[in-house]
């Protein structure tokens, strides 16, 4: 549900749009012979007219940005999906993720496209010499992964399970490239 700020913003937007429509109709009527009789006189002069024009422009730009950004366009429609790192199934990975989160790595991640995933994996674990298989957090499959990510050696079998569960999560929750999700350790 929208908060009070959203309601206030919607109300302000409505007022500005109504004022703009009134202005446009008013000036439009004056273009026709005799239309000036129908149109209500505009008493405030050109300054107010310009102010309305600027406000209208700002509102339109705001609406456009609002529609185009992931923040409001998509994420607001649903709560962030939660990916659970299961400490029973993948204890070493869970330990690593918990430590990485405690060290300040982000809990909210954004799924990245293929090229970013590959680059992240190579940037962080490309020179890994063990022991174990190189695990990284934030995940290589996210924009937050890559240089600066935390690394730890984990058993290969855990990584297979992690990959499977991450894929199942992405598909079940329909997490596409650019979508954000929350990571928790259980």
């Amino acid at each position, binding site marked *: 549900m929208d908060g009070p700020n959203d309601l206030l913003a919607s109300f302000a937007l409505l007022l500005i749009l109504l004022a703009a429509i009134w202005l446009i109709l008013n000036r439009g009527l004056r273009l026709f012979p005799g239309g000036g009789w129908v149109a209500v006189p505009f008493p405030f002069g050109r300054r107010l007219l310009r102010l309305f024009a600027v406000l209208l422009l700002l509102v339109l730009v705001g609406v456009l940005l609002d529609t185009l950004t992931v923040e409001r366009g998509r994420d607001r429609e649903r709560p962030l999906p939660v990916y659970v790192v299961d400490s029973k199934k993948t204890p070493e990975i869970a330990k690593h993720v918990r430590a990485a989160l405690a060290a300040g790595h982000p809990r909210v991640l954004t799924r990245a496209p293929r090229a970013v995933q590959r680059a992240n*994996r190579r940037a962080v674990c490309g020179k890994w010499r063990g022991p174990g298989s190189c695990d990284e957090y934030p995940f290589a499959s996210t924009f937050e992964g890559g240089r600066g990510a935390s690394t730890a050696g984990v058993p290969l079998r855990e*990584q*297979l399970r992690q990959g499977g569960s*991450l894929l199942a999560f992405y598909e079940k929750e329909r997490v596409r490239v650019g979508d954000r999700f929350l990571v928790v350790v259980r």
Partner: protein
Amino acid sequence: MMAAMVLVGRFSVFALYHQVQVRDAADGGTCPEWETGEERVLAGEQCIVLATRLDLAGPVEIEVWVGAHPEQPAGWLLFDGELLTTGQGVVVGSSLTEELYPIPLAIGWHPVQIYADRPKEPARFTVLFDHEGAGS
């Protein structure tokens, strides 16, 4: 009469998390999940998951053939079963990275055999569809 064997494609895939999939291209089919992480293959009705060599060791090659084959391909037989397609053929590759290559196949159950160049941590797979004849 049996159809001739056709090489549909040879794909090089970055196998993130050391696994690739052969799966129904239509949305809705879920892949089975690893129980122990020691398995080499997981098979569901619409998805087969294959453990590969380490992703950092380099890309994995997947060769896909359709039709009856005159002789058994070289390598280890990892999987011999069937895969269900529900309308858009199958895809092979990594679902995690969405690097998936389409293979046109009719709707229905298709016999599948998958061979690997070595039994553990393979770098190359040969996937045979309808090697027993046409799909049902």
